[in-house]
């Protein structure tokens, strides 16, 4: 097999300029023949640089804006060898060890760098390994990792209400109830209320049904906010709320919800 006579090439990606500088400096010491042909400040740039410059190796910081190092690696690992770089990422490092993905800690220590150099030198000229499955698992499964894109959550967690020329974000955890009023829906929290355009029907479809119950044609209440359900002198059920004086009527159609209470 023909040994390539050209010098090995690499691209470095890290959002912090000083860290790129640091890695460059360490590589110059440990692997003087390595030509660093490009630098990237985020995952998107990294992918672009690799596509254009076609280096042998890409050093990718795990946490980068735009596209994380992990996601960039997934896109690139067929094209070049990748080495992941991190200052600390306990979970990721474990995964790298198990999956035999090359990684470096920052700052890279000379002994580890020498070993990385040996490993990569042996592999340059070969087809880069397909790490897609490993990296995909990392991107999705990492609980403490905060990289890649969060899995699309099912339920609405924030209600947006116009206040002046900005939008008030009201966490669903703070909302006591929604009440249909005329053309709007009133959002009531402990401290304030707001009017939004979303209808109760839309909200019912978007909110976690275990968190919010429809108790009336006009009312959607957060279960945690219910202090107790009482009956008035006419026999109607009324919800008494915590932290708030209003009582909410439960229509007969929904009375079954509170049978066990």
């Amino acid at each position: 097999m023909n040994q390539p006579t050209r010098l090995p090439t690499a691209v470095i990606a890290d959002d912090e300029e000083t860290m790129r500088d640091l890695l460059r400096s360490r590589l110059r010491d440990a692997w003087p023949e390595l030509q660093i042909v490009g630098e990237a400040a985020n995952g998107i740039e990294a992918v672009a640089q690799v596509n254009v410059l076609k280096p042998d190796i890409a050093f990718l910081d795990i946490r980068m804006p735009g596209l994380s190092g992990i996601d960039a690696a997934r896109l690139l690992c067929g094209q070049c060898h990748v080495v992941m770089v991190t200052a600390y990422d306990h979970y990721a490092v474990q995964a790298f060890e198990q999956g035999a993905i090359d990684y470096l800690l920052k700052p890279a220590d000379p002994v580890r760098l020498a070993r990385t150099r040996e490993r990569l030198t042996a592999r340059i000229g070969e087809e880069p390994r397909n790490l897609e499955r490993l990296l995909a698992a990392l991107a999705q499964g990492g609980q403490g990792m905060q990289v890649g894109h969060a899995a699309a959550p099912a339920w609405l967690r924030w209600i947006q209400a116009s206040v002046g020329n900005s939008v008030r974000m009201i966490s669903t955890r703070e909302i006591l109830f929604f009440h249909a009023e005329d053309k709007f829906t009133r959002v009531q929290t402990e401290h304030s209320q707001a009017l939004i355009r979303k209808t109760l029907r839309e909200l019912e479809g978007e909110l976690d049904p275990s968190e919010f119950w429809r108790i009336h044609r006009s009312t959607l209440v957060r279960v945690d906010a219910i202090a107790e359900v009482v009956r008035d002198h006419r026999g109607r059920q009324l919800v008494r709320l915590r932290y708030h004086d209003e009582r909410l009527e439960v229509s007969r159609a929904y009375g079954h919800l509170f049978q066990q209470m």
Partner: protein
Amino acid sequence: MTTPTQANNGSGNPSLFREIATTSGELWWRFVDWVAVLSWPKLALLWLLAMMIGGMLGVPGFALIFVAVSLGTKVLAGGKRRADIAAQRAAERANVESLERRLAEAQLAALQAQIEPHFLFNTLALIGRKIETDQQEAARLHAHLIDYLRAAMPQMRESGGSTLGKQVEMSRAYLAIMQARMKTRLTVDIDVPYELYDLPFPSMMLQVLVENAIKHGLEPKVEGGRISVMARRVDDMLHVDVTDTGIGFSAYGGDGVGLHNLRERLKALFGNAAYLVIDAPAEGGARVSIRIPAREPAANAASS
């Protein structure tokens, strides 16, 4: 309970007279207290006993006087004494509840004040590199890191209560480090008037907002942006706002343990009087405002 004023008899032995007066006074009030809380059945038994003794000693008159006086005392003073005792018990209960709330808040505060390993190790890597290339910068960042760690480690926090000033200085140190790391991707703007520095402000609340703004708002944004910390006194409330021009909130993103924890702490410390307001400004990004009652430094209600 008041002691009767001492009569000043100008003649003979004034001090002895005073002694007798004081002691009798004390004995009288002890008698009143005792009778006031004595249950009726026990009192009736006492009367029976008094009558028997009076009869036996041949002084039934005194027994009758005793019954009359004790009856009068019980009727008049009993209600007041019971009310006093009930009030004292309620105060004790409130003290216990207040202590429990403060304990809960302290536990939440401890949970909140965790130093992020990512921040720590990235900063150490930065300082390590600067030692090789720019010693002055390395020293500056090193000093900031020490300031930040001192404020963040609960064991190392100074006693004396947390103030807005202390929290601002901690966030300032943190932001100076982030600015050195993110360079042109981060602009920092701190607008807190000095006269607000001494106002009590709970620890690690401003810092939570600042770290959220950096981690979730600005770091993930390719071009970065600006973070502003502003404090103002509005009527009798203290407003502390953290605004960023980052990627903003997603309507589907979780509340975050940090914000939820913060709300719980505010509730534990201030009940209904304090709250959070979260906005998505028209320009993009996010603005989170902590609003607490402005208390004067002397009456330090916020925990450290």
